[in-house]
């Protein structure tokens, strides 16, 4: 892109325009603040679509690059280097898509300090976009750490009862990983000539160093995903965060971890990746089963959905470490799918919570009779989450399992075999939840008077449902976007495997 405007810069920083406007408003202009935030995020989504229109799906390389020197630290150039490729483009679109939806869900739910809420939310969007678009490790780290600040405040200020505990736990957990990643970044930068990802040559890094670096980066990403046994921050953060925060946390922030594996660990430390594949896959499978089983035992709906995330993200990690076309493509698509279905599940929990101010499973039952519209929409979302054919979840999970079965690197069909049990368990806990909440007779007095969804609330869920059906019925355009880039990524492993034979 030599001529014309570059969309990446705008996609990343346009939300800050909204922040600026909101901070200039009077505190009492509540609806102006809401509309400004919503419009800003919609424009950002529009900008990300503009980026999509300029994206060439056939090109496996980084596109629409912006590479400006930022500054030179002791001989290391730190560049302001943005770019997009087939691996990150869906993440950028997902971020752009989910942010306005999350904001729309706060219309009635957030009344207190609304300017702060919206400002932090839009700052968070900038941070997330930056993470997915950075092509310089130092810049990536800055955006990565920066997302902590708004999320910390979103949980800590607008969360529910144990919010302070959850906010601090979230920050400390994430920082524990990312500080070691910083050590890794600095080391790579010093040893292998700089922080620019596109100039990095993996073959220069010896295996012993790769293993350490894989661990340093991998820990940060594994905490973010989160992989078992580093997951314990997630149920707290998800449960205590406000609805919109949970949507973005599950929808986008967790994907930053999985994306990190794809962007750093796989291409930069391929030999270490090959060595550690069985371990990573084993942790992923444990996560799938563990998350599902714990989810089944939850009494709090939101906690149930939170644990289901651990299970679902286990599939994503398994797909990534299948290291073949199907596995990684499935993983990327499943990242989008999980963002949509779990995002929608959190929205539904939020809608119920706004009406009943409780999330205990025992308090509900028979809601279908009182709120048929919500019931119908929830059924679709739930089925998408458990992977019913024809809906999006199936496509992703199927592709991942296929990849894991056929993988030359996992070297055992048992990983995929055990993971399949996770699909069944997902059906168990999700149907259990649906039954407890929506089916059966209405047992509680309070539930009889609940109002069904308003037009705005339907509008929040509708776009997600459209995409759920779209991916479920015709996923080809999504696969087309990523396949050249994934192919480029997987060839590295094929050549390495060939060389080893």
């Amino acid at each position: 892109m030599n001529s014309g405007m570059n969309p990446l810069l705008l996609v990343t920083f346009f939300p800050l325009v909204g922040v600026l406007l909101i901070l200039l408003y009077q505190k009492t202009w509540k609806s102006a603040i809401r509309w400004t935030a919503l419009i800003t995020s919609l424009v950002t989504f529009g900008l990300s679509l503009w980026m999509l229109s300029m994206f060439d799906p056939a090109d496996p390389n980084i596109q629409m690059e912006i590479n400006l020197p930022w500054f030179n630290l002791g001989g290391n150039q730190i560049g302001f280097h943005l770019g997009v490729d087939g691996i990150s483009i869906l993440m950028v679109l997902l971020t752009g898509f989910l942010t306005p939806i999350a904001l729309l869900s706060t219309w009635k739910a957030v009344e207190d300090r609304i300017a702060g809420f919206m400002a932090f939310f839009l700052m968070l969007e900038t941070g997330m976009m930056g993470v997915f678009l950075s092509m310089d490790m130092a810049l990536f780290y800055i955006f990565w750490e920066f997302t902590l600040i708004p999320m910390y405040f979103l949980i800590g200020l607008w969360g529910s009862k144990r919010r302070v505990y959850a906010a601090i736990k979230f920050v400390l957990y994430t920082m524990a990983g990312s500080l070691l990643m910083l050590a890794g970044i600095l080391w790579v930068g010093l040893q292998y000539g700089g922080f620019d990802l596109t100039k990095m040559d993996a073959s220069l890094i010896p295996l012993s160093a790769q293993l350490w670096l894989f661990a340093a980066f991998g820990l940060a990403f594994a905490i973010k995903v989160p992989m078992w046994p580093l997951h314990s921050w997630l149920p707290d953060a998800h449960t205590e965060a406000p609805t919109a925060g949970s949507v973005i946390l599950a929808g986008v922030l967790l994907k930053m971890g999985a994306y990190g594996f794809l962007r750093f660990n796989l291409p930069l430390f391929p030999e270490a990746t090959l060595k550690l594949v069985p371990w990573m896959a084993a942790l992923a499978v444990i996560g799938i089963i563990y998350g599902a089983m714990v989810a089944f035992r939850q009494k709090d709906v939101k906690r149930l959905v939170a644990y289901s995330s651990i299970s679902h993200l286990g599939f994503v990690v398994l797909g990534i470490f299948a290291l073949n076309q199907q596995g990684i493509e499935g993983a990327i698509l499943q990242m989008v799918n999980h963002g949509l279905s779990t995002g929608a599940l959190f929205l539904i929990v939020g809608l119920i919570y706004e009406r009943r101010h409780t999330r205990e499973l025992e308090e509900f039952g028979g809601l279908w009779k009182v709120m048929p519209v919500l019931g119908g929409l929830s059924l679709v979302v739930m089925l998408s989450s458990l992977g019913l054919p024809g809906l999006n979840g199936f496509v992703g999970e199927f592709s991942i399992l296929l990849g894991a079965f056929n993988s030359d690197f996992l070297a055992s069909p048992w990983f995929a075999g055990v993971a399949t049990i996770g699909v069944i368990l997902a059906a168990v806990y999700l149907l259990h939840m649906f039954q407890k909440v929506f089916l059966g007779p209405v047992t509680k007095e309070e539930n009889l008077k609940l109002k069904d969804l308003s037009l705005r609330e339907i509008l929040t869920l509708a776009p997600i449902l459209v995409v759920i059906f779209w991916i479920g019925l015709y996923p080809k355009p999504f696969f087309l976007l990523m396949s050249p880039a994934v192919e480029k990524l997987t060839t590295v492993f094929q050549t390495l495997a060939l060389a080893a034979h």
Partner: protein
Amino acid sequence: MTIIDLFSILPVLVLVVWALFLLLADLWASRKLPGLTPILAVVGLVCSLVVSIVQVGKPQSSFGGMIHVDGFSVFLNILFAITGIAAVALAYESFKNLKIQRGEYYVLLLFSLSGMMLMGAAGDLIVIFLALELLSIPLYIMAGMDFNRLESKEASLKYLLLGTFASAIVLFGTAFIYGAAQTTNLYEIALAVNLAEINWTLFIIGAALLVVGFGFKVAAVPFHTWTPDVYHGAPSSVTAFMAVGAKAAGFAALIRVFSLDFTVLSENLTAVFWALAVLTMIVGNFTALAQKNLKRMLAYSSIAHAGYILMAFVAFGNEAVRADSIASALFYLAAYAATSIGAWAVLIAVEREDASRNEIEHLAGLGKTAPLLAAAMTVFMLSFTGIPVTLGFWGKFYLFRTAIQGGNIILAVIGLLTSLVSAYYYLRVVVKMYFQEGDVKVSQKGWSLVVAVVAALIVLGLAFIPELLYKFAASSLIIG
């Protein structure tokens, strides 16, 4: 003594002469215009700052090698002058609040600053000792400025006793070095070392004593025990000045002396500095974790930050890393100075007339009652933790990079993990301010607010253009 000699120490000279003039002016002003003395003090500091800036890029040696004006000393001079200006502003507000307005305070402040500046430019162990005394003695008095309060008196006495002890150790070390090399001039010592014309036993004892003496001044563990009590007892504005100025001066001496003269001993000293850095980071951060008082928490956090700077300095013997080692220490000192002054300014704004209400508890609700102060404090806490986008992040980024470059990966990892610990107690301040209700009453005006906001803008603004500060720090090499 020539005109050139005088020109080389002009920033110091301006301060000393101005301080003497101020002493007389205050006799008259204290009755009629009590606000005049601080204003005049700032004028003197600005003059000194301008002179320092003029000296940028003009390295020279004067007084027969006793004084070395180079990038290093100029960088520190500018840092000290700006710190001084902020300290005057904070003292004016804080002392008015505590009802101990006294003009001689500003005179002492200028004397102390002149000692710090001299320390940065010292090319001789004797000058270092003189500078140490010139900067310390006024500080002993300043710490006891609020003499109606027992803690202030205690702080003054403690600082005096332990400070004198440390000065004596520096002097003792100097004597040993003189015995070993027959000179106290840093460059001649380096020469003697190169020619191996020294008595090694005496030389090593001297070096060890200097480590202890300077370790005391920068408050490195295990020479830190005076810090919490003195920082806590002294009036807050004095502490702000001490925590930044005295620490930077201590590092100035440490860096210059060791990177010039003791690189031969680096094989032995590396282990010593390694242990000092690790101890300082761990003890500083973990003890800060347990503090309930904001002043004590900041005191221990300042100990921890000394540990980070020491970490970069561990590799001082390595020729290839030394330039980065010094530059990253200076960069971090500047970042630490801006952040620290800001944090103390917020504390001063919250403090009451009787120097009470400085528990972390008392910040509860600040986010609602004083949003500007709370926002600034948040910036400082993030910068202390090293979270982007703040100057503190770049400071740590550069320090850790230097440590890794020097081959001290384990040290860097320890440093990174202790900064995770620090995240907990810094975030607790943010939790108090925003997530809890409280009855803190602050009038959002006055100099402490100005200082806090300006410091916050510097911490945030320079984070986007770190090259500005970095280039300046990187050019601040010691001319050897």
